[in-house]
């Protein structure tokens, strides 16, 4: 039984050195009311052309059932939750609310993400160019995702600031959450078996864990 030196020690140090800084808040570029720690809220209404009423439900149906359509969204790795909803009518609650028939349908879009607002829209524009066209193409005034300047102006113009925003884990970025969950899966077997391994076998398993874990820490 020797100490964890040599390759094992190097790996431990490497794992620790890749740990993310504990605190820098990356949420920038938006009102403080849209921010809770690392998390940013974006809330956008856009008015839908007549054909969007027919097209968007089909798009939403496909987005839910054909995973590769939203694979890029997942790969972007900075969106915790996002949603799109087609608002065709306002729920009626009796007087004094007037009964209102809306001229147009409206698309509600919200995202809970981390990073900077500018970088978020940049990424949407440059990486998800086709997706943005698909999701916002039926919205009046949508200038297209590129060039990004007019698209940012469009989002700004249609965005509404949150009055209150809450994240249950404000210090965590999506990368940290995804990494922590992956680490949990990876750590579980060693937690289960650690007590039954001899120290040499444990040391080998622990080194492997730390090597694997570097990408998640």
């Amino acid at each position, binding site marked *: *039984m020797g*100490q*964890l*030196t040599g390759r094992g*020690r190097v790996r*431990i*140090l490497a*794992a*620790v050195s890749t740990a993310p800084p504990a605190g820098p808040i990356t949420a920038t570029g938006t009102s403080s*009311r849209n921010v809770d720690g690392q998390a940013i*809220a974006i*809330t956008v*209404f856009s*008015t839908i052309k007549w054909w969007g009423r027919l097209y968007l439900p089909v798009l*939403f149906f496909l*987005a*839910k059932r054909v995973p590769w359509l939203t694979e890029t*969204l997942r790969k972007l790795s900075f*969106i*915790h*939750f*996002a*949603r799109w909803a087609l608002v065709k009518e*306002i*729920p009626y*609650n009796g007087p*004094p609310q*007037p009964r*209102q028939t*809306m*001229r*147009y349908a409206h698309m*509600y879009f919200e995202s*809970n993400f981390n990073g900077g607002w500018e970088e978020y829209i940049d990424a949407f524009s440059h990486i998800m160019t086709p997706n943005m066209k698909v999701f916002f193409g039926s919205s009046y*005034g949508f200038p297209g995702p590129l060039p990004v300047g007019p698209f940012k102006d469009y989002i700004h*113009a249609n965005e509404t600031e949150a*009055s*209150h*925003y*809450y*994240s*249950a*884990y404000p210090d*965590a970025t999506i990368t940290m*959450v*995804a990494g*922590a*969950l992956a*680490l*949990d899966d990876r*750590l579980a077997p*060693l*937690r289960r078996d*650690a007590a039954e391994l001899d*120290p040499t076998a*444990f040391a080998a398993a*622990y080194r492997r864990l*730390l090597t694997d*874990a570097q990408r998640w*820490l």
Partner: protein
Amino acid sequence: MKSSNVSGQAYGFLAMTPIKPGQEAGLRAYLEDLRDPGPSPMSRVPGTHMARWVIVERFNWDPFYDQPEPDALALPMLIFSTCFDGGLDGYLDALCVELAAEAPFIWGRCIGCPDPAAGPALKAYLEHNQIDCGFFFAAYGQATLERVRASLDQRDRLIAFATRTQGLPPAEIQRAFALEFPR
């Protein structure tokens, strides 16, 4: 449960309620000050990952858009959006209990809200005003809030553990590991 509101085990709830005439400023001020006394009240509602209240006064219209006419909201609307674990029924039950102190000052300022703004009547009100999602995306929709928090905590502990135990003999690391990360 409508599947369009669900991603994995996560549920995305969205409600739009009309704000009573003359109540918008008071509601906005109340919501904006919610953090002053301490943590967000949403932290008391079990299973809530992320939530927001937003007041929408109007739908944007720009003369340079090719939209023929503006579409006016008759009244400003309060949007409540939340992403949480599990089903809507149990969540709204808990929410209507946990937010009993705040609800009269929030939805109580909206048309049609029951008085008192609490319990099953408030739940029915929120359900009535629900807007179904078209598409709800959750990056880790299979993971509950409890698991997310436990995993983040475990991650931090592993980083600290690796630092603390560097250079120790394997047997000592093993003993410390079993204590730090019991099966």
